[in-house]
C-alpha cells in the first residue's frame, strides 16, 4: 500500500496540454476516482501513474519514492484495462500467473497465489478455461484477479465497468468496492460516469481539459460544487445567473432575471453588492408548494414536460423565461402534475449553491 503524490504534473501532446499542472495527494488505502468527460486528461494521468506515458513536467511519487520516469514493469502497480487486455493465447490460470512468473516467483507459490486471487473474484473453478470462452463479466474479474495477484502497491482501474451491461455494472460495482475494502489497497479509478464515482469513491477529483476542478469526498462534490462545471457534470443542476443585492454575514440576497429575490445561506465573504454570480439549484431540492409565500424563495411556473420514472417523476417547469428541472419523489397517489398546470416552486436558502466561477 502506497500513498501517491502528483506534483505539478503536466503532459503535452503536440503542444496541447492533455494534463495541465495537476497536484494530487492520494492517501494510503484510499479509493480515489478521476472523474471527467472524455478528453479531460483522466486516462493520461492514470497512464502516467502506470508509466505508459512520461510527463512533460512535474513528478510522481509512490510514498517518498520518485517514480516519474521508472519504466512500467518496475512500478508494481496492478492495472485493469477498459477492454481487460487478457492474453488470448493463455487460459485463466496462465493469465493470472503471468505477473508472478515475470517476477520469478516459485511454482508452488504461484499456484497458491493464483488460486487465492481467483477465489477472491469467485472464479475458483474456471482456472483451465480459455479466456475467450468467458462472458464479459467473467473476463473482467479475471482482469482484476490478474492485477491483484501481483500484490501491487496501487491498483489502477481504467473504466473497468464500461463494457458491462447496466445490471451487471451495478452488481460488479458493489463487488469491486467490497474487494477494495477487504484488501485495503490504494486504488485509482478512472471514469466518466459520475454515478459510479459517487458510489465507489472515498474521494473524487473532477477534471476537465486537463485541469483539476475540484477534489473532495462524494458528498462535498455533490453538495458544494466549486464551480459551474462541477455543478453541471456531477448530478443535474439548474444554473441561474444573478446579481448580488445584499451581502451579510449570515447570507446573501440575489436577484435573478430581474424577477426573483432569493436568499442564500452560507459563506458570503468576498461578495459585494451589484456583483454578478451564478447559483445552482438541484432538481430534487425544488419543491411544489400550494400558495405564494413571500419570504420563502418561491416562484411560479408552468409544467412543460413530465416523465414518470416509477420512484420519482422529472418535470421541466418554465419559470421566468427559464426552464427548470424538478425531480419529485412519488408520494400520495394522484400527486403527479400534468403538463400545462401552473405550479409554485420553492427552495430553501440552505439548498442553494453559490458558484464563484
Amino acid at each position, binding site marked *: 500500500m502506497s500513498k501517491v503524490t502528483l506534483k505539478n504534473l503536466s503532459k503535452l501532446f503536440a503542444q496541447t496540454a492533455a494534463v495541465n499542472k495537476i497536484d494530487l495527494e492520494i492517501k494510503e488505502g484510499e479509493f480515489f476516482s478521476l472523474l471527467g468527460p472524455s478528453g479531460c486528461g483522466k486516462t493520461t494521468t492514470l497512464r502516467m501513474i502506470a508509466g505508459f506515458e512520461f510527463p512533460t513536467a512535474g513528478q510522481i511519487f509512490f510514498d517518498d519514492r520518485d517514480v516519474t520516469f521508472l519504466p512500467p514493469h518496475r512500478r508494481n502497480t496492478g492495472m485493469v484495462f477498459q477492454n481487460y487486455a487478457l492474453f488470448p493465447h493463455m487460459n485463466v490460470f496462465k493469465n493470472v500467473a503471468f505477473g508472478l512468473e*515475470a517476477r520469478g516467483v516459485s511454482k508452488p507459490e504461484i499456484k497458491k497465489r493464483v488460486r487465492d486471487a481467483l477465489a477472491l473474484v469467485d472464479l475458483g473453478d474456471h482456472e483451465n478455461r480459455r479466456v475467450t470462452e468467458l462472458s464479459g463479466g467473467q473476463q473482467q474479474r479475471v482482469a482484476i484477479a490478474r492485477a491483484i495477484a501481483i500484490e501491487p502497491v496501487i491498483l489502477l482501474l481504467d473504466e473497468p465497468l464500461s463494457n458491462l451491461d447496466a445490471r451487471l455494472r451495478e452488481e460488479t460495482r458493489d463487488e469491486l468496492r467490497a474487494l477494495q475494502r477487504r484488501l485495503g489497497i490504494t486504488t485509482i479509478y478512472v471514469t466518466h460516469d459520475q454515478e459510479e464515482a459517487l458510489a465507489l469513491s472515498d474521494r473524487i477529483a473532477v477534471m476537465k481539459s486537463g485541469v483539476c476542478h475540484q477534489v473532495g469526498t462524494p458528498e462535498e462534490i455533490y453538495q458544494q460544487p466549486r464551480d459551474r462545471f462541477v455543478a453541471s457534470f456531477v448530478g443535474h443542476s439548474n444554473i441561474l445567473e444573478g446579481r448580488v443585492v445584499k451581502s451579510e454575514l449570515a447570507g446573501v440576497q440575489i436577484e435573478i432575471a430581474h424577477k426573483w429575490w432569493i436568499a442564500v445561506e452560507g459563506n458570503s465573504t468576498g461578495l459585494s453588492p451589484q456583483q454578478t454570480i451564478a447559483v445552482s439549484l438541484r432538481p430534487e431540492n425544488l419543491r411544489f408548494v400550494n400558495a405564494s409565500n413571500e419570504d420563502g424563495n418561491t416562484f411560479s411556473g408552468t409544467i412543460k414536460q413530465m416523465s414518470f420514472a416509477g420512484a420519482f417523476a422529472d418535470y421541466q417547469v418554465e419559470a421566468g423565461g427559464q426552464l427548470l428541472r424538478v425531480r419529485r419523489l412519488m408520494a400520495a397517489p394522484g400527486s403527479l402534475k400534468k403538463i400545462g398546470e401552473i405550479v409554485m416552486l420553492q427552495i430553501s436558502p440552505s439548498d442553494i449553491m453559490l458558484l464563484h466561477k
Partner: protein
Amino acid sequence: MTIRKYSSLFILLPPMLFILLAYVCYPNLQILIQSFFSDRGFTADYYREFFSIRHPSSLQALWGSVYVSLLTVFFSGIVGVSLAYVFTHYIFPGRKLFSLIAVLPVVMPPLVGVLAFLFLFGESGILPRLLQALLQLDSAPFSLRGVAAIIVVHTYSMYVYFYLFASAAFGEMDVAILEAAQNLGATRWLILRKIIFPLLTPGLGGASLLVFMTSMASFSAPFIFAGGFRILSLEIYNSKLNGELAMAITQSVILTGISILFLILLRFYSRGKTYVGSSKGVRLQPKPVSRGWATWLMGIAGIGMVVFLIMPHLTVVLISFVKNGTWTAQTLPPEYTFENYISLFEDPRVIEPISNSVKMATLATTANVAFGVIAAYLLIRKRFFGKKLIEVLTMLPWAIPGTVIAIGLIVAFNRPTLFSAGKILVGTFWILPLAYFIRNLPVVFRSTYSALEQFDPSLEESSRNLGASWWFSFRKVMLPLIAPGVVSGALLAYVLAIGEFVASILLYNYDNRPISVEINAQLRIFNLGSAAAYSVFLFILIGLVLALSHRLLGERGTRVTM
C-alpha cells in the same frame, strides 16, 4: 414446385461433375494407378527404384527439394517478419512507397523473376562483373549459382507470404495487451517471448506451410539454376524428357503426396488456432522513429530494400533494349536498340507466341469463370449429396504442383479416351488451355465463392418480393454485387495463365508455344534482348490487369461498407 426447385441442380450438376471427374480425378488417378502397374501387371518396382540406395537420384532429388524448401521457409520467414515488424511499428521516410513495392515479387511471372536474377547476379551478371571491374579482379568475386541461387530467388518471391501474414497479425494486435504485460512486470524480452511470439505463431505456422508447399512445387528457379543439384520437380521433367515416363509418374506421386500432406496439415493447423481478440481494443499505431540518426538509417535501409525489390524488374527492362548477341564479356551491355520491341509488333514469328498465349489464356479463363460461377452458386445455394467432394476436387489442383498436372495430362490423354471425345489431346493445341484451366480452377472458384458468400440471400428475396423475376433479380441485384469478386478472380487467373511456364514446358508443341516457352528458347540461344522484351510485355500486361483489379476491388470495398 419441387421439380422447379431442383431443376437448376439437375441441369448444372452433371456437367460440373463430368469436368471434375474427367480433368481433375481421372489424370491423377491414372498417375496413381500407373505408378503401380507395368506391362507385367501390378508392381511396386517403381517405388523400389525411387527409394533405392544404389540409384539414389530420386532420393537425392526428394531430399534436395525438402532441403531447399526448409531453407526457403527459414529465410522468407526472417525477411518477411522483420520487414513486417519494422513497417508496422515505425514511421520513416519511404514507408508508404515500400508497402506498395513489397508485393511486387508476387506479380512477377516465375520464369521472368528467375531471368532477372540471372542477369543481375548470375555468373555473367551485371553485379558480379561490376565488382570484378571495380576491384580489378581476375574473375568475378561472387555469383549466384546452384542451391544458393534457388534459395535467394525463392526468398525474393515467397517472403511476401510471411510479410502479409505478419503485417496482418501485427496490425490486429491490441496495444493494451502489451501494456498489460508491461504493467504486470514483464520486460521487453519477456513480452516478445511470451506474448508477441505466441500471438504470431498461428499466422506464421500457416505461412510456413504455404511457403513450404510453394517451394516444393517450384520449377522455374531450379530449372535455370539447379545445375547438378537434384530437385524433385525438375527430376520429373528430366525423367519425362529421357523417356522414363514411369519414373516421372512415380516421382509425381511422391511430390503430390507431400504437397497434399502439407495441405491437410495446413487445414488442421489453421482450424481453431486463430486468436480473435476478445475485444475491440486499440490497434498498434506506428510510431515515428525518434532519434535523428535512426530515422536516416531506417530511411536508407528502406530505400535499399526498395531498390533491391525493383532492381530485377529494372534489369529486365534494361536488357530488353540490348541488341541480341552483343552483350558478352562487358559489365553493362554495350549496344542498345528498339529492335526487340519493333519485332514484337512486326515479325510474325515473334508475334506468334504472344497471340498463342493470349488465345489460350482467354479460352482457359472463360471456362474458369463459367465453371467457377456455377460451382460456387451450387455449393452455396443448393443442398445435395457430395457437396464436400465437389469442393475438395475443385480446390485440389491448388495442392498439385504444375509439373504433376502436366504429367497427369500426358498420362491421361496420350491415347483416345471418352473424356477427350475419342481423340489424343497430347500434341494438340487444346492440351495447353486445358492445363491452364485445371491449374486455375481454384483461383476463380475461390474468389467467386467468397463474393457469393458475402451476398445476403435476403437481397435476392426482397427483389423477388418486389415483383422481379429470377432472371431480372439475377441481372440487377446479384450480378452487380458479385461481379467485382468474379472479375478480380478471372483477372488473376488470366495473369497466371498468360505467364504459365511449368506445365507449358512439358506440354507445348511448336504451333502453340506460349510466351514463357519462347522466352526460355530465346534465352537458350542467347537472344537476351528478345527474351527480356517478351518479359516486359508480360510486365505491362500484368500491371494493367492488376490496376483494373485494384479498381474493381476498391469498388467492392465501398459497397461492402454500405
